[in-house]
Structure formats: C-alpha cells, structure tokens
C-alpha cells in the first residue's frame, strides 16, 4: 500500500508540475519583464561604445525589481554592476544595437518599455518589434520626455506572438545624445485588460 501511495503521489506531482510548466510559470509568464541585464537581452556592436550604469532603471526604481528569472535582483550575476541600465551614443549609421527576446509566445500581448531618469536623451529612439510570425512594427520614442516610467506603443493596441524588440543607435542626432537601454515588458491580454501591468509582477 505504501509503495502504491508513493507511486501515485509521484505521478500526481509530475502531472501538476507539467501543467504549471505548460502555462509558463517557469519561463515566460502572462506578464513578462525582460531585463537588460539578463540572458534574454543581447547587445551588438563594438563593446567600447557600450556603457553600463548602476542604480538606474526599473530594477533600481523598485529596488530590487522583478525581471524574468531574477535577473533584476540586486546582485545579478548577469550584470557587471547592480540595478543597471545600458547606454550608447547616437550615430548616423547602425553600429550598436540590442535585442530583447520577447519569447515568441502564441498570445495577444501589450508591449511596454521602461525609460530611466538618466542616460536617455534621444528624442527619437528607433525601436522595432517583430511579431505575427515575421511582421515588423517600427516606431520612435522620445526618451528625453520621460523620467522613470513605462511607455507603451504609439497608437496601436495588442500584438500577436511578439518575437523580439530591437533598439538601434542610428538616430543621427548630436554625438553626445544618449540612447538608453532598460527593461521591456509584454503583458498578456486577459479579460479585456492586463491586470497589474505595466510593471508589477503581482500577484
């Protein structure tokens, strides 16, 4: 009897874990913040033009904030410094750019990015998101107009199967103009609205 009980218990636990995993508890969730210090964030271009700043951005504001897989924690192994953001400077041709891997989840999502209170002065940060199996949506964000807040897309609503977010440096502004790279987020559309979004990962 005891062995049978153990067998049933093990089977049930495996099933429950499998169901939770299928829903994305251990990977991307309904509200997924992709941290600019983590393994879902890739920087491209000459390393000497990338600058990391401690004590800025979403991770610093919420102190410590929440990002996928804990990459926003105070002493994240993914960051050279804690609670950081990245920046590069404006140019007239593509040199440095970054990608946030948004998960390519088969769901309708709202999109957000966090603009820190420093090191982000471009008036036309060139973002693009890929979605829908291969469509591209291009837009610009005036980072100079925001201070520590989440920003959504220009006019559109929800996007299906968001794949990647890209941010480039070829804004062709003054060479001292800074382009800030911080967190991005997608929130699953649920019952007409995404509760606790943007920002929070509660409940």
């Amino acid at each position: 009897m005891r062995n049978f009980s153990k067998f049933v218990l093990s089977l049930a636990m495996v099933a429950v874990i499998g169901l939770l995993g299928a829903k994305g508890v251990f990977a991307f969730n309904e509200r997924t913040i992709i941290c600019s210090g983590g393994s879902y964030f890739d920087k491209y271009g000459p390393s000497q033009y990338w600058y990391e700043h401690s004590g800025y951005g979403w991770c610093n504001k919420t102190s410590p904030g929440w990002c996928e897989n804990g990459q926003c924690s105070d002493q994240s192994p993914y960051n050279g410094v804690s609670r950081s953001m990245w920046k590069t400077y404006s140019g007239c041709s593509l040199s440095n750019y970054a990608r946030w891997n948004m998960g390519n989840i088969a769901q309708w999502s709202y999109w957000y990015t966090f603009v820190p209170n420093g090191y982000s002065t471009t008036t036309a940060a060139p973002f693009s998101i890929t979605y829908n199996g291969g469509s591209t949506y291009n837009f610009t964000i005036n980072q100079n107009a925001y201070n520590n807040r989440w920003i959504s897309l220009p006019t559109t609503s929800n996007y299906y199967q968001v794949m990647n977010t890209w941010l480039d440096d070829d804004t062709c502004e003054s060479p001292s103009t800074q382009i800030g790279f911080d967190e991005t987020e997608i929130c699953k559309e649920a019952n007409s609205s995404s509760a606790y979004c943007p920002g929070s990962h509660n409940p």
Partner: protein
Amino acid sequence: MKVLNQLPKKAVAILPLIAVFILVGVVASRTTPVGAQQDPKQTRIESLTKKLQDAIADVQKNGEFTTDRHGEKVYAGETATRMEQLHKEVSEEINELQARPAAERAVTVNALNQWNDSFLYKVSGQPRQNVRYIRQVGGIQNFKKDGVEVYVSEDYAYQVDVATNKVLDAYIRPKEVGEPKEFMDMTPRYDSAQLEQMAKDVIASQNLGVDLDKLTLEKGQKIGTYFFTWQGENGKSLQVAFTQGGQLIGYTNAGFFDNL
C-alpha cells in the same frame, strides 16, 4: 523518500489524496464545464485568433521571407503586406469586441477634450489634439486599477478612469515611422522653480485630496525637460513633466486613487 519514511503513516496515506485533489482542481480550472455556454464575444475572439494562427502557419511554409538589418528572418513582399493587414484587421475587431459602447467612450473623449483645454495649449503654436479610443488597460505604472481606458491624440497618450472620467496619466506618446514629430516647445522660458510651482498647480487642479507637503519631492531633468515626482507611501507617486518652454508633457497619478 527518506522524508516520507519519517512522516506518520496516516500522513503518508493522505498525501496521494491531496495530490489528486490538486490535480483535479487544476484540470477543472482549465476546462469549460459541460453544457456551459461560451460568451459569443469570446467565441468570436477565438475564431479570429485561429484565423490568424492558420495564416501564420501557412506563410511559414509558403510565404516570402527576407533577412532584416538585424539579421532576423522577417516577411517580405506581398507576404509582409498581407500578414500586416490581416493582423491589423483581427486586432482591431478583437479590440472593438472588448470595448465599451462607442456612446460611452464619447463621454470620456469629451472629458479629455476639457482636460486638454485646461492644461494644454498654454504655449504658442501647440496644435489642437483630436482624441480617440485605443484600448482598456489594467494598471497605471505598477498600480492595479480596474476600469481604465487608453486614448491617444496626435501627440499625447492618456489613461482615464472611466467611472469618474478623471485623467490618471497623460504623456507625450511615441510615434510610428512616417508620423509628424510631436510638438515640443523648448524655448528657454522658465526655470526649475517656476516649473515646480506650475506642477503643483496641475496637481491641485486634479482635486485628489493629496497634501504634497506630506510627500517627498524628487526633481529630475534631461535636456530642456523637467520632471517633478512626489513620492508617497508604498511606491505611490504623482509626477508632472514640463518642457522648459512651459508645455505640459506629462502627468501621472500612480496609486492615489482614493479620492477620484
């Protein structure tokens, strides 16, 4: 299994039952009850989403692709046009299905026009803003709030509490490629102290019943833009942003919802 052996026999015997109950509960929560009628709107949303999914699956096999400047494989040519159009149609229909009736949204648009008249157009040459509905949203900057809708105009995005038609958030919105650049009066006209007083006036006009003297003020500045953020308990905040020319470019009520 050593842990199991250390537990009382009765407890061990109950564990499988608990596990089965959890399993049944999880499965039941994901299953529509037999005989239950599904919401026709939800049925339509699922049908539309299936239509899009089928199209995506088809073009992955038969569509035209290219590699973009980042090295990502994306749609090209007629495939790109067709898939973008289909996504737009489906997204817009779903959005409309989930929205309040247009007549109710029109009341909110009127409230936003009045808000714009009160707080925008203070600087010379700022274009009139034509407001339109975008979608519903579930929170304001990390604070859950039911019954909030997003509206946009040419240069701004707004979030409004539809129960009171009070503006909770207004900010310069991002731009699609090809749209005119947003109007920003960057004339060096006001200093930080003057703009701080203007920010206090904006908040006072919202009638939130908040005593700013009991909050902590954080000042921020970028290039010709000024930000005044009053921090309260539990992360609540009120933020007002101006250009140095005196144009309001941001107002955010994050969490002060008690006296709307």
